[in-house]
């Protein structure tokens, strides 16, 4: 698989390590009253879709940036990649 790194162009997926669903960017508020339940869901539960999946890849053998890669889990086709930093900042500004 080749990942279209937004800064470096197409890079072999072997240069990356995989973390999982990009929803892991949305860490719950640890001080909220329901923090225990929210963190149990955050740490352990997954949507695990068959089809498009937005997921976190870390460019460990490269520029050490985190990416949000959009990939089809049925065909392994990669449809795009963004810097996770940009995704997280865009969510925060909403």
């Amino acid at each position, binding site marked *: *698989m080749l990942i279209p790194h937004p800064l470096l162009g197409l890079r072999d*997926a*072997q240069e990356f390590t*995989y973390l*999982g*669903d990009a929803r892991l960017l949305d860490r719950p508020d640890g001080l909220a009253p329901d923090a225990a*339940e929210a963190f*149990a*869901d955050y*740490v*352990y*539960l*997954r*949507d*695990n*879709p*068959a089809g498009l*999946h937005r*997921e976190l890849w870390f460019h460990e053998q490269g520029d050490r940036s985190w990416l949000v890669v959009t*990939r089809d*889990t*049925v*065909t*392994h086709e990669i449809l795009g990649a963004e810097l996770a930093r940009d995704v997280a900042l865009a969510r925060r500004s909403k």
Partner: protein
Amino acid sequence: MRFSALRVFQQALTGHKGWGPLWRNPDPQPAYDYVIVGGGGHGLATAYYLANTFRQARIAVLERGWLGQGNIGRNTTIIRSNYLLPGNEPFYEFSMKLWEGLEQEFNFNAMVSQRGIVNLIHTDAQRDAYRRRGNAMLLAGADAELLDRDQVRAMIPFLNFDNARFPIKGGLLQRRAGTARHDGVAWGYARGADRAGVDLIQNCEVTGFRIEAGLIRGLETSRGYIGAGKVGVAVAGMTGRVMAMAGMRMPIESHVLQAFVSEGLKPTIPGVITFGAGHFYVSQSDKGGLVFGGDIDGYNSYAQRGNLPVVEDVAEGGMALMPMIGRARLLRIWGGIMDMSMDGSPIIDRTPVEGLYLNAGWCYGGFKATPASGYAFAHLLATDRPHDTAQAYRLDRFARGHVIDEKGMGATPNLH
């Protein structure tokens, strides 16, 4: 029809005209007492043990494709009970004991062969860890022997004992472990369940659950609505998709695991050899093919096929361990979808929906568990209480912090 040597002999003399189909191919009834979703190894085993517990109940197995099309037909056929943790080891040893009596029990040749498994040791720390694991196995009633380097060499002399990075210092041996004919296991359970009156309904995809006021009523399927008293879901690999239809998110990711088989060779590998440090394990089938594999690819996948970097990784592990494998030609590569759970251990439990039960999260260790998984799931469906050996496999153990994490990796499904 019972299978026996005499019958094989008689059929050989009469042109093999007396063999019939192993099971019926019925149409679905309007309603059943018990519906098992998933006609794989675990679903068929569940139906088998359930039917033999309650012969009067109406029981059906619904299968999207054909019986045994999933991981029961895709695994590397290893059976063993060499686990460490108290939540796991008694369950897998229970499974091992069921394997030992399985063929007589369901009157089918599953080619269970207790040829032993050796986990290789390369460091003092690993020897300590395996000594501890062996003791845990002995405490649960399993067998375990710690081998030194010379004992391993006497048993499997063709390994590379002096690899600079991973010299072989010994091994943990379980003699009662071995291999079984994976498809035969599915067929044996299917035939046994059918003979006990279970309807095995193929080409019947579940498209939704009918749930009223938190109680299961039945299933929407591609062959119409089927009412159900209790529903057991045993669809490892697809658990996330099926349970999403009941509105539940699962502590599971689906990942692809690849497996490999070489051309047929003369008998050379006496049992199962695992090279955990190098992500490689191998055994030899009765047809002569070297059956081997390694780690999962490491990213979410429903593709039933993997990518070449892992093929290379597994081949490198094989070459490091037993250089002679480089002379063998690869015959087939395939992939299966693994239910990778958040702690690497399975789930056999009730769900928040009354009457809906779950059997899932087998990671890449489901085959060896097939008999005990079926038995324990049938026990749960029948009595609403977990089987003695499966009490730790609760769905809510993650939120409660009672995970069963053999590898100590935490909530990282791709590392278990």
